[in-house]
């Protein structure tokens, strides 16, 4: 791929527990994924939801590899990690 921007959106949703942000952030740092922005909230008082914008230009990992590493980093927790090119959101939510 020869794109200039390599922004990705990482979404983590599931049961709230101590240490989710730390694990995700550590794994991303190890993969050389630069976090640009981060939002975290608790939906309905119990569901943890984190959305995270990152640059993967410096990372050698493919998208499926990024997804599986992040998912593994929270393997024993009840969480679902999704990684998508940020263009999806640009297209769907901006005219």
């Amino acid at each position: 791929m020869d794109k200039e921007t390599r922004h990705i959106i990482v979404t983590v949703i599931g049961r709230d527990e101590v240490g989710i942000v730390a694990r995700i952030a550590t794994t991303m740092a190890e993969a050389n994924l630069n976090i640009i922005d981060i939002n975290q909230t608790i939906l309905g008082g119990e569901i943890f939801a984190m959305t995270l914008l990152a640059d993967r230009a410096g990372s050698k990992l493919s998208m499926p590899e990024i997804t599986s590493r992040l998912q593994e980093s929270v393997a024993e927790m009840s969480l679902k990690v999704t990684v998508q090119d940020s263009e999806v959101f640009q297209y769907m939510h901006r005219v």
Partner: protein
Amino acid sequence: MKFTSEEILETVGMIAEDKLDIRTVTLGLSLLDCADPEPAACARKVREKILNRGARLSSTADAVANEYGLPIINKRISLTPLSLVVPSADPAAFVKVAQSVDAAAAELGVNFIGGYTAMIQKGETAIDRALIGAMPEVLSTTWRFCGSVVLASTRAGINMDGCHTMSRVIQETAERTAGQDGIGCAKLVLFANPVEDNPFMAGAFFGSGEEESSILVGVSGPGAVRRALENLGPDADLGRVAEAVKKAAFKITRAGELIGREVARRLGIGFGILDLSLAPTPAEGDSVGQILETMGLAMPGAPGSTAALMMLNDAVKKGGLFASSSVGGLSGAFIPVSEDASMIRAARAGAITIEKLEAMTSVCSVGLDMIAIPGATSTETLAAIIADEMAIGCANHKTTAVRIIPAPGKNVGDSVHFGGLLGEAPVMAVSKVSSATFIRRGGRIPAPLQSLNN
């Protein structure tokens, strides 16, 4: 952040829970340069072209789906109508080429390939006759090759002899595939006013006015539309309902356009069109019927269904057209019975009949789709059902289609089971009042008037 959490979570939810997906990335491929009067040579050229041009389709689509996190369910190929490619009046030539196409599709891992197609709205050539003559054999001995026959157009009228001929073809195909409830018929679509850039099977073919090859994308997302309406609550008036459908359609279309352009770019071929059609699957929630239920109808088929479907179909198109300048194909709502859990329930309960479906097809794409009828239905009655559907398309300047299965040995109360995307359907009742004398007249119903439309 560039996007709010709500926006991101909405998209993630649309994909994970509402089954928003790219239903098909279809490679449209011209076969005009493969014509050869020698069947073996023609079969070889067609096979080589499909294998050559389609080689990277699946892997490229999978790579894009992975990166964007949007599932691409099917990778398919649509071909130039075979009647324009095989210059032979011998049915055996068509069987040979069709088997070669089917084998090439299997080799590429493509689940359906379209274009076993003839256009006879005004009359048949000897080549068309050969193609149609071989159709029962082709549909019963190949797995992936889908057929379509154009029987009517607003400019030509309705080829009634063609309706009768195709009625016989359907019955023979059903008999030949009786062991699987007549599944061969699920791969055959009869058209009025077809579009030439449709990415959806079984009716896809790549028209003679198209370029050498292009990427045609079919996006779906009935679940996402239903969710948008559920969020609106039961008290919202229908203007607001239409608005919510438009907004959901906009987002779905944009997702499809992004994926289509990226796949086309990586394959180094043009992006053709995006077809935003609410296409259901048998999976619970992935249903157009359930959208009608969310609008407030107890079941699809209830009085009001035609009005609700008109609004849905229109709002989908409006949202889609604003989202992309490449909208094409059919773009609307599909109401196949066997492929939609809610429609199956309505048919079982007797809430929806063939007659009500026929009315609904006058306001949506596409037509009488995936309907099982008693195997003993007469050839003339089946031809008359086809003719009625052609008339709706013809008079309303729109595409209509018939994909109907006379289930061998089965009657009302029985069910047919195809499995997978094709689903299952209860056998629906057909009128017992005879149309035989009308159908036996044959000939062509002249093209309808295009002015004085009152």
